[in-house]
């Protein structure tokens, strides 16, 4: 019986170590994805980091059944999105000019920065006004390296559905931004 328990413990340790190694290897990619999804809802860096950290911790706990890449990414997107929505509702933080970070170029003047911020704010308000189904495809498609196929995989939707929702979302955004 002692030999059996030792064998079992050794197996458990090996399995845990393998999972940790695998998760660590994918942490950079997953953390960037979780953060951007959370930021797409919250538009506040610190809040987005907190929400993304929670989502990544949950992904770590469930990584045993999320080892397949697409499955893990899709699961993480859903968790991060849902957590960000809940956080937004619970905190009801208003999006202000100061809270919208902006990657500015060094050549931009202060006026340019202000204009950029204003445009971003309007854009975000328009995105917030979209229905949730259109909003999520807009945010995911806006993240770099995500084409229609990738978005379809993340949301577990047919590509045609993603295309039609993107089309509708952009149409409505144009109306709101005019």
């Amino acid at each position: 019986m002692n030999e059996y328990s030792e064998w079992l413990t050794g197996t458990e340790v090996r399995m845990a170590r393998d999972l940790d190694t695998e998760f660590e290897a994918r942490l950079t990619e997953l953390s960037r994805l979780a953060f951007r999804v959370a930021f797409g809802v919250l538009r506040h860096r610190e809040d987005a980091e907190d929400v993304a950290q929670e989502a990544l911790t949950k992904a770590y706990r469930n990584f045993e059944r999320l080892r397949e890449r697409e499955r893990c990414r899709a699961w993480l997107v859903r968790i991060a999105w849902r957590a960000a929505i809940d956080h937004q509702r619970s905190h009801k933080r208003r999006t202000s000019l100061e809270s919208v970070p902006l990657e500015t170029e060094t050549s931009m003047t202060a006026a340019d920065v202000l204009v950029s911020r204003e445009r971003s704010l309007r854009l975000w308000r328009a995105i917030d006004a979209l229905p949730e189904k259109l909003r999520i495809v807009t945010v995911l498609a806006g993240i770099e390296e995500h084409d229609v196929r990738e978005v379809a995989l993340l949301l577990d939707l047919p590509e045609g559905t993603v295309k039609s929702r993107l089309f509708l979302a952009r149409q409505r955004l144009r109306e709101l931004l005019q």
Partner: protein
Amino acid sequence: MNDEQLKKEIEQALSVAPSPQFIARVRRHIADEPRRKWTHVTWRIGTAALLASAILLGIVAIQPREARIPRPVAIEKAAPGPAPVQVVTRATLQKPVAAKKAKDARPRHAEPEVLVDPREVVAFQSLIVDLEERRIDPSQLSELFEEVEKARTLVEVAPMPLAGLEPIVIRPLTFAVPDKEGGSL
């Protein structure tokens, strides 16, 4: 604003990077997580082991048990006498024994013991005592046994075949007609 311009604006709005400490913070947070519990794995293994044990026990339990050999009945002495309590078998009956040897406890024979009615045992013991004291002639015993065997065969009647039985005929009752009218019954 066309689709391409809108897409670029959205991408620019989302191209915010997390702080440089973000990934390090996530690693620290995960490192503080409790160790992975494989209880579901050990639980499955334990359950499988329990099931296997239960199946084995069930197989063993439903195996037909061997018929128990009943122990010989402890016989009390019916009459005061030197004969000790002992198990009587056919083998011992067929051999007339000396009185002293009969008193000693007999070693068990290799053949299986047979349960004997205590009254029969008493009768056999009496027989043995009579034989020892020469009240009964042993040579007459064999004739006696033969007659007993014959009596058994006489008792055993072979069943008659049904075809040999005569059918039972029930004749209707007939009453004599009285000569006079209104005759008495």
